């Protein structure tokens, strides 16, 4: 239900249950890429010392550069639970569309196709593609059938803001209950004005406006969550 309101990707497990994945947006992914870029630059400069050892050293250097160039993300994603260092810092991971871990084939596909995603320069194609896609997939993700998702619990399990539990005057359908819960969960992120403005839409339900409306909406959310 919240899938339509939110950037959740819902996958159905063979066990007959729907699992929701929190898809990562373009900003988080760009930041992760930036960190990886720095890591790679550090790797290159660390490796450049190899060239001091003459022919064999240079050979090793070239081979390492080749590996870093093409396989840096692949190796990390496959061997490190879908995370490159940048993704780990930001709590992102690559998974397949059905939520299972990426294997070699999917990871190689999505990373080699960076060549196309980079066109016509500075990841232009990737940006357009992920802005157009519901799950903010770049071209490589579409082809490989992969998603980049948030894996850490950060910002997920906050307790609802304190408010006296209040029974809603009418019985609410599940979608409405979910909307109230989401409102309550996110309300600490907004300024008081914005909270009041949004709660205004609930005036028919709460029978109040302004700060009092907000408090009542929060109370109903607590009540739905089971507080009495």
């Amino acid at each position, binding site marked *: 239900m919240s899938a339509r309101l939110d950037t959740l990707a819902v996958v159905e497990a063979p066990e007959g249950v729907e699992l929701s994945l929190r898809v990562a947006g373009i900003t988080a992914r760009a930041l992760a890429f930036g960190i990886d870029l720095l890591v790679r630059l550090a790797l290159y400069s660390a490796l450049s010392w190899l060239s001091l050892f003459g022919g064999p050293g240079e*050979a090793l250097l070239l*081979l390492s*550069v080749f590996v870093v160039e093409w396989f840096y993300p692949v190796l990390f994603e496959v061997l490190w639970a879908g995370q490159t260092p940048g993704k780990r810092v930001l709590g992102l991971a690559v998974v397949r569309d059905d939520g299972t871990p990426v294997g070699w*084939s999917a990871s190689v*596909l999505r990373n080699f196709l*960076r060549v196309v995603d980079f*066109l016509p320069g500075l990841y232009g194609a990737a940006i357009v593609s992920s802005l157009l896609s519901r799950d903010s997939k770049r071209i490589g993700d579409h082809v490989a059938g992969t998603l980049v998702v948030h894996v850490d619990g950060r910002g997920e399990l906050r*307790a609802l803001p304190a408010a006296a539990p209040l029974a809603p005057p009418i019985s609410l359908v599940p979608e409405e209950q979910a909307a109230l819960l989401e409102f309550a969960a996110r309300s600490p992120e907004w300024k008081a004005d914005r909270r009041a403005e949004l709660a205004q839409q609930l005036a028919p339900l709460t029978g109040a406006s302004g700060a009092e409306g907000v408090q009542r909406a929060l109370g109903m959310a607590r009540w739905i969550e089971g507080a009495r």
Partner: protein
Amino acid sequence: MKREPFIAARKQRWARLESLLAALRTGRRDGLERDALHELPRLYRQACQDLALARRRMYGRELVQRLNQMALRGREQLYRPSSRYLHEVAQFFGVDFPRLVREEWRLFWICSLLFAAPLVAVAVTANKRPDLLYAVMDPESLERFEEMYAPDGATSSGRGVGDNVRMFAFYVRNNVGIDFQIFASGLVFGIGSLLSLIYNGVHFGAVAGHFVAIGYEQQLFTFVAGHSSWELVAMVIAAVAGMRLGSLLVAPGRRSRARALVEDAPRCLRLLLGAAAMTFLAAFIEGFWSAQPLPGTLKYVVGALMWTLVIVYLWLGGRRRAA
């Protein structure tokens, strides 16, 4: 059932599952009893069921999130792709790869033609009208090539073991990188692969034509004889893989384009990986054999052998077990 008794009845089970998953995730399994892992599938299925119930009965965001997380982690562990590397590698190179190439025989010949035609045309032109050469190559890179193949043999005989390794590494990075690029650019409706293929044909043709024109042909041909088979054919196969990838967008058949890509892109990738392995082999030969100061006849014989080997491999490889 109310929320609290629901949680109380399952608390232990969840804690058990969570500790199992944590142990599996960090790879530290020493703390687990021997049969602990056998519990995982059951615990996971129960967690899935609990998740469905908790969601349906609106037991609250927190609980649903926790169960969702548990189910995701469990799924991650249970549905991991299998890993029998060695067997798979042998199966791939022995059987699957040559078959894949034969399945794409039409594209293979089209790409070969698209590569060979500009090569020959430019080589002949460059031989007759050397001035036209500079239309496709800049003078500096030509000079570099000339130094590499100078008939006095300073470069080839003066190379030590370290240099051979270095050249091998250089060829790997350069040539395998070219394969990857030819493939990936194919996603642009196949046009990228097509252009790269023609470009490389023109490039090789220009170099070859130029060297024949200035009388270095002996140097050039003895050098390339050994590795050319693997390298050139691999380049064509990389283009085949790229064109096939592009064709999934141009003509997806009775599927959506996205579906066609998800279903068939792995097949294209397998073609590319085979090609990359061939190029790797070529780089090995190029680094350690091609520059050895050995009689030209020997080099031509080895070159002919290599071409035969490539043809026999791709033509007959994996046929016997097909019956």
